[in-house]
């Protein structure tokens, strides 16, 4: 076993990816490219076991996500159970197929908050990126969420096609009554990595968008909180990914695989434990997967001797793998990484990506073809 021998701090955040099914086809989806292979979803009792054991360990924030969690018929039952266990329950949804009755039903069983995504501030672009006609309905759902007294986060993933809409996106958030806005620059994993050259904005686009976001952060202070998730390809230090591996976050995939980050199942030679074989406490405290990147024993240079290693933990290991082929390398976002040129080259290439190269949308057909 690699990593520190000190007992790990307990998980605080449980992300329950209830299903990979989704009516939307966003080309930056963070689900694995080969998601169509994993059809053996956990049943209600298995999810309840996960929820109970994780809560006993100390998890208190709970996100129901997917895919689209509304697809699960037992969603209300699981929300109810989680509420009784004392979780703060978050539903992370596209809003597709949601109606007022469902919003009320979830409120009654104790749902605390709804995060709804919009793909753009215009119908045409939203429906194109979502791969599904959904814009008007999503806006209606957002208004109903506020009507029934939920706190609401509006999430918009930013990329080359919509980043110029920043002002309109923020005006739309105000109109819809969002309490929080998450402006999430695309992170290049899974489908987003596959479509990277088509999705990556230019430096100029980002500068403009960020300036507008900052303006609104000031003008909306005390009314609407705006989070701007930095585009890490344009930084020179990596993000402190997952707040440190195996320190805070526990993700359970639809088929019961326990993941230290939601990309981890795609690391090669890396066995993520299943909740069908192990308890959450065994998984969190004892599994090789969760211990692998704890502490700094796994680090190579330039991380090992870096004075900032306790700040960013070497960055994102999945990104290091995706770009350099070795997850124990420094995240190449860091300009101390000998492979930092991979990032600058990707930014450069994206700036000149041929327009005619189409986006590959996230759906089962494409998943079977390229996954």
């Amino acid at each position, binding site marked *: 076993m690699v990593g520190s021998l000190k007992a790990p701090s307990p998980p605080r955040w449980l992300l329950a990816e209830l299903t990979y099914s989704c009516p939307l086809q966003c080309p930056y989806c963070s689900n694995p490219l080969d998601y169509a292979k994993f059809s053996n979803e956990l049943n209600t009792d298995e999810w309840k076991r996960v929820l109970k054991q994780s809560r006993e360990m*100390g998890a208190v924030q709970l*996100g129901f996500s997917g895919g689209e969690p509304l697809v699960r018929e037992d969603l209300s039952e699981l929300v109810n159970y989680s509420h009784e266990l004392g979780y*703060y329950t978050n539903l992370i949804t596209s809003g597709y197929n949601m109606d007022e009755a469902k919003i009320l039903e979830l409120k009654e069983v104790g749902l605390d908050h709804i*995060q709804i995504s919009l793909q753009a501030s215009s119908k045409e672009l939203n429906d194109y990126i979502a791969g599904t006609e959904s814009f008007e309905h999503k806006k209606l759902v957002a208004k109903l969420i506020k009507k029934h007294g939920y706190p609401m*986060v509006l999430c918009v993933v930013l990329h080359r096609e919509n980043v110029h809409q920043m002002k309109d996106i923020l005006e739309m958030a105000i109109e819809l009554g969002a309490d929080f806005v998450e402006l999430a620059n695309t992170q290049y994993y899974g489908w987003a990595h596959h479509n990277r050259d088509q999705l990556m904005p230019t430096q100029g686009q980002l500068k403009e968008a960020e300036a507008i976001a900052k303006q609104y952060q000031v003008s909306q202070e005390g009314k609407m909180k705006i989070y701007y998730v930095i585009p890490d390809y344009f930084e020179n230090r990596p993000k402190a990914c997952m707040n440190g591996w195996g320190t805070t976050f526990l993700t359970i995939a639809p088929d019961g695989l326990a993941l230290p980050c939601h990309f981890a199942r795609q690391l090669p030679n890396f066995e993520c434990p299943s909740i069908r074989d192990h308890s959450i406490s065994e998984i969190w405290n004892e599994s090789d997967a969760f211990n692998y990147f704890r502490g700094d024993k796994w680090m190579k240079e330039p991380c090992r001797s870096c004075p900032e290693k306790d700040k960013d933990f070497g960055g994102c290991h999945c990104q290091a793998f995706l770009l350099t082929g070795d997850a124990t390398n420094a995240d190449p976002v860091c300009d101390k990484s000998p492979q930092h040129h991979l990032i600058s080259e990707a930014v450069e290439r994206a700036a000149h990506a041929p327009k005619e190269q189409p986006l590959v949308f996230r759906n089962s057909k494409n998943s079977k073809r390229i996954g």
Partner: protein
Amino acid sequence: MSLLDSNKAIQVSPTYRLQWEETQDMFVLLYPEGLIELNQSSAEILQVCDGKNKLNDIVRTLEEKFSVTGLENDINNFLNTALGNGWVTQSA
């Protein structure tokens, strides 16, 4: 800089939830997709932000509870920060 109106009652904002966490042995403040771990004094103050107590009441309650005096400055500072962060609100 003082935002707090000492004539108005203070409550934990409806977007936030104050909760005791047994495994962590501490109070936490929960909100959409986030949590704040509270030290003991912050937790003591927030527990008496019940929508009826004003600044004076909060100071008196806590000074009595801990048999001390001179807490007003610290409590006032904390509540101003809490108000600025949206953790607590004051009714109109």
